[in-house]
């Protein structure tokens, strides 16, 4: 997947579509939008960065799972087999992106599947369909004729947390350098802070 941060407006349509598609419980996300404020007046700005499972080429969760419940599909998707998961949470501990969560209802680890049930039938993932600005492009990066491959070749792309060396398959077009700003959760807005109004 390729995400163009130039056009993301932080509307959370992707998050809502994902929640609806998978009936994701409250408080956890397969797909969300982080936002971070950067700079100071009069040059302050806010960046929106959609985040989801990166389906890494060198996926730490896949190596970590002691019950072999996580596998890679032929298309490159990294999926969790719910039946084999005993929720030891080692995959959650190993994932540097926090992309895996504990489903409180099913008592299994869950994460983005890139909507494999939809893509197998030729449809787009729910988040891609829902995006009003078409900032998400889904496709085969290995196919040079695909739109995603052309866009990725035409512009410089970046990945989230390159130091983790997991080789993510979710690429970002990030000309303003927003990705390094969400390396830690601390950059997100403190909702409990009292605003002075100045």
């Amino acid at each position, binding site marked *: 997947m390729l995400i163009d941060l130039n056009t993301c407006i932080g509307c959370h349509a992707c998050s809502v579509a994902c929640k609806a598609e998978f009936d994701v419980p409250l408080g956890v996300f397969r797909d969300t939008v982080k936002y971070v404020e950067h700079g100071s007046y009069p040059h302050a700005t806010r960046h929106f960065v959609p985040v989801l499972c990166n389906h890494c080429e060198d996926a730490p969760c896949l190596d970590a799972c*002691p*019950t072999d419940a996580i596998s890679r599909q032929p298309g490159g998707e990294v999926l969790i087999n719910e039946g084999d998961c005993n929720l030891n949470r080692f995959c959650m501990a190993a994932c540097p992106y926090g992309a895996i969560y504990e489903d409180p209802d099913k008592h299994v680890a869950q994460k983005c599947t890139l909507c494999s049930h939809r893509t197998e039938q030729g449809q787009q993932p729910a988040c891609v369909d829902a995006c009003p600005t078409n900032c998400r492009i889904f496709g085969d990066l290995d196919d040079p004729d695909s739109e995603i491959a052309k866009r990725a070749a035409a512009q410089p792309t970046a990945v989230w947390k390159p130091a983790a060396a997991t080789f993510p398959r979710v690429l970002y077009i990030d000309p303003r350098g927003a990705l390094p700003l969400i390396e830690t959760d601390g950059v997100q807005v403190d909702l409990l802070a009292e605003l002075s109004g100045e």
Partner: protein
Amino acid sequence: MQQPWGPLLAFYFVAIGVPSGLTLAALWHRNRWPQHPGRVERWTIWTALAVLLVASVVLVVDLGRPAGFFLMLTRFDNLGSPIAIGAKIIAVKVFVLAVAAYLLRRRHGPGDVPLRPGNAAARVLDTAVVWLLGITSLALAVYPTAVLARAWFVPLADTSGAALIFLLTALLMGAAGLLTIHAIGPRTDGAEASRAEADGHGAAGDGDGSPGRADDGPPGGAGGGPRDGAEQVRRGVRAATLALLATYAVAIAFEGLAVRGNPAAEQALVAAMATTGGALAFWGLVVGVGLVAPAVGLVAAPARRWVQLGAAAAIVVGASAGRYLIFTVG
């Protein structure tokens, strides 16, 4: 991000060092004083078994689906997962410890008497058990590092000295076990060792065979006879414990240097030390209670029984605090 592991796993990674340390300490003790009766082995085997079983129960209880625990033992497709390997090693070690307990009972029988030599098959089995215990104990001593180094929230485990610290804290817990075993209960094993040494080396005994007490003789155990032999065993355990404490201090110092080359670990450590709880845990528990207090006690009053018990307790507290800090810092 959801914090995947909580206090139960912290307890698990602390407690899993105890059986490794006890087993390795018992193997060293048996190799150093082979003629002693089986009290040390019996205590260490049953304590290690009990702690391993408690740790296993904790691990199972912590699972979101405890009924699926068997998958960690029966699946061999992902041998690159340290926690999968660890679960299998724990199972092997529990079995081998049970075999060792059985062999000890067959060779030893009730009461504190010297071990009986077995037949050739028993000796082969005994050797195999000793090797298996040594290998599984070493593996379990360092395996928390392999698990935690892959966790994004435990940056200290991803440093060059973390494995050494986990190994040393496990060995220190084992040494504390030996100190405790020698400080409580009858002091017959030292006397028996002394008899064996007297038989082998012609040393004179005092003839009454009464067990020597650590706190009724002069410090240092000067003199000859069984009391001298018993003191020799205790002195050896104390010396090994002091050597381990010194090595642990050096390892902590080198870990401090290693952290400086790892920005994530350094940041986490500085943040932890900036809090009152973190600083107190490190300087108070790890250094003060775990290193300085037992070292001073064992050097200043080595023959006092209560000093040995206090030093053992302090070592366990300090080593546990060290392992816990590595797990929680970050």
